[in-house]
């Protein structure tokens, strides 16, 4: 922000999704720290953020696709992450030699998913939800064909070092990377012609078209970027777990949507941003860590209370602001 902002009214601030979810996150973190002081330790903060970073990076593309509108959503991010990790691990095979090529091959294979998604959505007019859902089956099927069900290889030590090792200031490289990507994406959305066009296409595709924007090209790029960032997320996951398995990314399918929506990105398109998604990703991670720490699940009632509470808290957080317009003016 270069210009001075006229003192934003407090009321408006209190309705800002980013502010609300940020506050809820801090609240949860506070509660967790009270319950278990270990939560407040530096090490634990760093590891929690590390776990959140995978979701955060995968949700970058999700945020872009949702902003681009037209019921945009990408449920295949988990599949793209898995594919990328599997390809990378096969090429790396536990050594640093093939690292560069492996990363390239992994990201390229992820991008193919995005291209196919985009073609389905833009050319064949398949609803994005269904197209990307179908892609999960296709990618899973492809992985099975490609690996025979048993992915081989393992992470390059360098990659592992990046994700888990301390690099600078006691902060693992993955967090620096996330920070860098965040700055890049936020800049992309706020301060580039691409970002402004993306919002315009999401807010009103026809207007954008009649203003000389090519909405199909913009959406195409959003789907490809989505898979690309999912692929990056897959690489980071590979660095974290060091070896791959065929369900590696499955968990991120709906959670990435939830992270974006919690952060204020609306599924109608043209609204939101990545800052909110970052907080959404952290909130989801902290929430499940809190429920786990408090042993809400796992006691004599098993996992049930944790699942129930998780859902209820999510509803409460969303109720705070993530609401659609009233019918009556």
């Amino acid at each position: 922000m270069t210009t001075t902002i006229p003192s934003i009214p407090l009321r408006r601030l209190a309705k800002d999704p980013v502010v609300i979810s940020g506050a809820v996150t801090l609240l949860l973190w506070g509660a967790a720290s009270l319950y278990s002081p270990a939560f407040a330790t530096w090490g634990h903060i760093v590891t929690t953020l590390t776990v959140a970073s995978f979701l955060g990076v995968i949700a970058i593309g999700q945020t872009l696709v949702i902003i681009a509108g037209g019921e945009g959503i990408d449920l295949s991010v988990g599949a793209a992450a898995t594919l990328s990790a599997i390809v990378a691990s096969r090429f790396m095979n536990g050594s640093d030699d093939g690292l560069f090529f492996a990363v390239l091959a992994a990201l390229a294979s992820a991008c193919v998913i995005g291209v196919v998604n985009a073609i389905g959505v833009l050319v064949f007019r398949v609803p994005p939800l269904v197209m990307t859902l179908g892609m999960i089956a296709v990618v899973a099927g492809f992985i099975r064909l490609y690996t025979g069900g048993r992915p081989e290889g393992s992470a390059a030590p360098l990659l592992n070092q990046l994700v888990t090792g301390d690099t600078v200031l006691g902060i693992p490289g993955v967090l620096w990377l996330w920070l860098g990507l965040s700055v890049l994406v936020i800049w992309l959305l706020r301060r580039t012609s691409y970002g402004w066009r993306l919002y315009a296409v999401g807010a009103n595709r026809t207007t954008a078209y009649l203003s000389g924007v090519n909405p199909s090209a913009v959406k195409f790029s959003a789907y490809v970027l989505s898979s690309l960032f999912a692929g990056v997320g897959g690489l980071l996951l590979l660095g974290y777990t060091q070896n791959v398995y065929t369900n590696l990314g499955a968990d991120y399918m709906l959670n990435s949507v939830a992270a974006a929506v919690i952060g204020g990105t609306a599924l109608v398109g043209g609204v939101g941003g990545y800052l909110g998604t970052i907080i959404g990703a952290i909130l989801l991670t902290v929430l499940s860590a809190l429920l786990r720490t408090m042993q809400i699940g796992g006691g004599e009632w098993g996992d049930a209370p944790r699942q129930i509470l998780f859902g209820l808290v999510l509803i409460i957080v969303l109720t705070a602001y993530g609401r659609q317009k009233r019918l009556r003016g």
Partner: protein
Amino acid sequence: MDSPPFLRMSGVRKRYGGVTALDGADFEADAGTVHAVLGPNGSGKSTLLKVLTGVVGPDAGEVRLRGEPLRPRGPRDTLAAGVASVYQELSLVEDFTVLDNLLLGVEPTRFGLRDRRAATARALPWLERFAPAFGGRVPVRERVGDLDPGERQVVEVCKALVRDPQVLVLDEATASLRRGQVEVLFEVVTDLRERGVLVLFITHRLAEIFSVCDRATVMRNGTDVATVTVADTPERELVELMSGQPQARSSAAPARQAALRTAPDTAGAAAPAVGADPSAPPRLEVRELTGDRLDGVSLHVRAGEVLGLGGLQGQGQSELMAALFGSGRRTGGTVLLNGAPVRPRSPKQAVRAGFCYVPGNRGGQGLALGRPILENFALPSVGRRAALGVALSRRREVAAARSVAERINTRYGSLDDPVSTLSGGNQQKIVVGKWFPTEPSVVLMDDPAKGIDVGAKAEMFEVVAELAASGAAVIVGSSDDRELVEVCDRVLVMFEGRVVDEVFGDRLTEDTLIASAMHITGADVAAAHSGDAAAELPEPDHDPEARAPGPDHGPEEGGA
């Protein structure tokens, strides 16, 4: 004498965030009258009537109908009380048939199931009554999405009528109607008045008020400023009430008209492009253009000239602009820009070539309503100011937006506010102003003043004049002949996809335009409207028979 008025609204207030839509408005109307509600854009007319119909919940105020307080929780309650409305934004379900739309919410049932026969019996009389407005059809089972905007508007009206209202609200119900459709509507409105129905009528077309309304309430800034009897009030007084300022002259773009009138008569030679150098080669030349609803259009415009497209609505004016801009279908013909052929296949290419387009539907096609004013201003030209075509400087963007906003006198709070917070007129200025930084050489404007109040209209036309003055060729389409006369140097009258008349110089008057448009449709209609004017019309300068699209125009696809 002391019996309470049929409808009384008092002290109605409504705020939207920081915007005050209604600021203690009072309103009274009697049964059996047609009561106009007038006022500039954003003065709260629609909001007031939405409070009446229950769509908007007021912050304060009271509504009494027949002396009884009406506290609706939604349209269901007011409908039960006999209030039906045609809203400014269409409220039809596109996937439904006309019949299903007409009875939506009031479907008759038998044994718990919808009773189609009873439904048809209820709806049919109205559709038949309006058959002339549907071109003679009775479109019971047609899908509403397949109807054209005027027909949809008529369906809206029928939908309200099917509910047998005691109070009928018509919010700019005539804005997208053709002349013939308006006439049918006014006949029905007159019948309703005789049956004791109160009709509340919002419009920006003053002529309509004088032809059908008994009383008029003028609103400004969210309150009522006066209620007058129409027959006793001259037009000029109404305009003064609306604008709050004494009116110097009737209305807009006087400078251009003055220039036109004083220009030496060029004795019918080439068109006298007033703002342009008549000897200059045309900036834009169109030869034999064919496409959707276009049946061989030829025209030329010079730099600095404002060319109008007149005629009845829906004769290919919009399609012509869309075809030129690359967003509509174009199957044949040539377009020359500065003498060189151009064939944009998308708006993107058209913009590159130097075209710009102001669509008729502001919210749906001109603006990204939820996005900030700044981004809306920047959208067509954002790449030009970006470093490497990508990186933006906020300072540069703000400066660019400010300079345009100043040039066209746009009023806004902050450039970061969503564009939806602006009043209609200011929104419209952004739709036009956003093109300035692209320095267009051809400006296409489709009904740029639709739904715009009198004051904003004047400002709008100054913008048009300014664009022409800066050297652009301007093409303006409008359904309002008065507008065309005020703003254009020359008007082409279109009919069924062809240019059938060219009007300029002293002949450029409202009467000539109406007559010219009517001449084609049938002498009897024309005679009824403009007396003997029709007889004096020149022959159309193009022979329609010679313009039939020949097989030499291959079926090529353009646009999207």
